[in-house]
């Protein structure tokens, strides 16, 4: 469990990036910090692995104040995935993935073997192992970045807008990969994004931030959607534009299906007949609980 | 300092000659590097060739080039032309990289939109490419200017070094102050040239000032 206690960060040039921030991040769940630029979300993330140190307040991981832990040692035990992958361009894919194990003294053959297994885990073809990052597509590079973050099997994985730089189709694939990985591995993931839809998709808990790291609302996606706490949140999630209010339209689909539109009139999907049964005949999906959330991705 | 007042005429005369003998190569270097740089930024093979050729020229130590130039040009050794041509070649060699970078720095999107708006190739060059490449060209030109002014003094060894005469003369007479005066006046000329270039830049490229400092 990660805990922020009254954390503030003022940068040397005077900007107050984070102002008295407190939060408990539960273990083995995906917590998403979401907000627009300047909300301090990336700063908060980077405080967890001490890339940034707070000017006041403490951060504890599993009860230990990380200010007392040597930063290099700390970082080697936490996975970190960034936008644009940040791969070392002069090292092969397999060496990139094996970076941290090699740093901690794992012999090369062992590290490489584990790297190949990780490539399978993130859905990368093993034939790419000997290539250089410059020869890979954006989506492939991001997968390498994720594999690299998982290489030492850390408990905590930090992801800083990792899918911001790839195109929407690839992004969707990668998001599904994260859901699948979390179902398999159950890590403590702290995920930063400015995309509320991504937050709702991936987050077991979502924390909406305003400038200076002020928490406007936090909760499960359902809680936030059902009851946005103020106009800022409503606007941020699109409620004010009618995006989140769905109505069955007059247009019909197959069988009892009706086209679903939002309050703005934009088509969103198809709703099954009010009988509550999916076309396949099975009952409607279980309501979302933390461990079951990712199962929904596999449902129709 | 007494010496300076007594010989002010000499020093100023040398300074004037120094300014003249270095200004011409700077201008030639700039003027020649524009078409060469533009062409080289368009055609990759030409770029490699030009950079190699001028790279070789640049590698040759200046004294060697000064000595050999009369042979190549068919002039007498005390001709101004030797020094001017040699320094011009160096100036082009130095400017070429900058010119290629400068024209390369013009965003292809801007060029395309200029064509789409209706600019013909020639007017597009003068009104779009050249001005936009301007800041990089200017920055490199300032380097070339300073280097050329400094380089000229070597030519004192063949008798055409402008203020460089004060170096050899001061050395022969074991008179360090004379050398210092030579250095100071050389720096002054370089500074004046630089100020002129900066002012020209402000005049001709007003937008680049807001874009941030280049150096």
């Amino acid at each position: 469990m990660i805990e922020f206690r009254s954390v503030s960060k003022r940068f040397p040039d005077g900007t107050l990036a984070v102002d008295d921030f407190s939060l408990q991040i539960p273990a083995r769940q995906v917590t998403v910090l979401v907000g627009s630029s300047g909300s301090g979300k990336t700063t908060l993330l980077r405080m967890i692995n001490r890339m940034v140190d707070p000017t006041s307040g403490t951060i504890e991981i599993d009860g230990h104040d990380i200010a007392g832990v040597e930063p290099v040692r700390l970082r080697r035990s936490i996975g970190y995935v960034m936008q644009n992958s940040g791969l070392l361009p002069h090292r092969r894919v397999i060496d990139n993935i094996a970076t941290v194990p090699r740093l901690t003294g794992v012999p090369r053959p062992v590290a490489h073997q584990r790297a190949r297994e990780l490539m399978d885990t993130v859905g990368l073809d093993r034939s790419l192992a000997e290539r250089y990052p410059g020869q890979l597509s954006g989506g492939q590079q991001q997968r390498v970045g994720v594999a690299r973050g998982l290489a030492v099997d850390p408990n905590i994985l930090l992801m800083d807008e990792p899918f911001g730089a790839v195109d929407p189709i690839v992004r969707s694939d990668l998001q599904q990969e994260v859901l699948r990985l979390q179902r398999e591995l159950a890590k403590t993931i702290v995920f930063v994004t400015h995309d509320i839809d991504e937050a709702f998709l991936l987050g077991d808990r979502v924390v909406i931030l305003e400038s200076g790291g002020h928490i406007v609302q936090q909760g499960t996606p359902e809680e936030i959607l059902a009851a946005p706490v103020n106009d800022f949140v409503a606007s941020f999630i699109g409620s004010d534009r009618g995006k989140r209010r769905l109505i069955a339209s007059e247009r019909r689909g197959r069988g009892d299906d009706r086209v679903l539109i939002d309050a703005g009139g934009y088509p969103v999907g198809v709703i099954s007949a009010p009988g509550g049964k999916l076309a396949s005949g099975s009952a409607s999906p279980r309501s979302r609980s933390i461990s079951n959330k990712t199962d929904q991705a596999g449902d129709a | 300092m007494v010496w300076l007042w007594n010989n002010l005429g000499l020093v100023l005369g040398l300074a004037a000659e120094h300014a003249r003998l270095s200004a011409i190569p700077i201008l030639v270097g700039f003027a020649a590097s524009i078409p060469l740089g533009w062409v080289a930024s368009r055609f990759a093979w030409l770029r490699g060739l030009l950079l190699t050729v001028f790279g070789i020229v640049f590698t040759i130590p200046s004294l060697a080039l000064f000595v050999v130039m009369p042979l190549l040009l068919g002039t007498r050794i005390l001709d101004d032309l030797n020094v001017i041509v040699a320094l011009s070649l160096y100036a082009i060699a130095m400017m070429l990289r900058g010119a290629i970078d400068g024209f390369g720095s013009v965003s292809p999107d801007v060029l395309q939109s200029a064509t789409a708006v209706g600019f013909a190739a020639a007017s597009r060059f003068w009104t779009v490419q050249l001005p936009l490449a301007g800041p990089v060209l200017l920055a490199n030109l300032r380097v070339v200017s300073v280097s050329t002014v400094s380089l000229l003094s070597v030519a004192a060894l063949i008798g055409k070094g402008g203020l460089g005469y004060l170096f050899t003369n001061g050395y022969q007479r074991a008179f360090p102050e004379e050398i210092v005066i030579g250095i100071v006046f050389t720096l002054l000329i370089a500074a004046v040239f630089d100020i002129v270039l900066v002012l020209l830049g402000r005049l001709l490229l007003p937008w680049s000032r807001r874009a941030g400092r280049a150096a």
Partner: protein
Amino acid sequence: MNFFADAFAYILDPAHWAGDPGIAQRIADHLLYTGLSVGIAILIAVPLGLLIGHTGRGRSFVIGLTSAARALPTFGFLLFIVLLAGLGLAPLIAVLVVLAVPPLLAGVYAGIEAVDRQPVDAARALGMSEWQILGRVEIPLGLPLMLGGLRSATLQVIATATVAGYVAQGGLGRYLIEGLARRDYTLAVVGAVLVAALALAIDGLLAVAQKLVQPRGVSRGRARPASTRERRSSRVPAIIRTPTTEGNL
């Protein structure tokens, strides 16, 4: 063109190679001056450049130093120092070192500075120590530009060592100086040809070295991918980034 023919005849005559001073001796002198001063300059400039490049502090110092060095008439500076310190190897080497440090420093600094910040940041986040980042990421990626600085510095030194023939007893510059003094134009051309050949040869070797240290997987001239978010400092001007625009003597 007669002089060229005579000069080549002179050079090809083995008798002129042996002896003191012969061609071989003078080439050796020149190489000694160059190697010694560049070597010392490396000891000074490389640690300093790595420090400034890695921490990002002191870049205006580098820029200022480079500009000042470019403006200083090296010939005058050389004569001045020799007048004060006397003829001898030490003052000569000292002057050459002073002239070699700025371009070398600029090259090392530019090499580190040009490395994309993202892999560096990622390396730090993964848990590399600062030394490891320097050694495994910044130096390998910055090596080509650093060698560019070395090329520039070496050229500067070779050229100044040539001109130093005016005050020194050794080096290929003596052919030029003596030739000019005695109006023996052939001799001067001999010097010109030899020193040009030496400079081209050494520069050629360094150019090959520069190609060899280009890290695999990174294309030439790009130590960074297309996206350039998160730049730590503003762009280094091209003049410093491509140190071959340093004035040479």
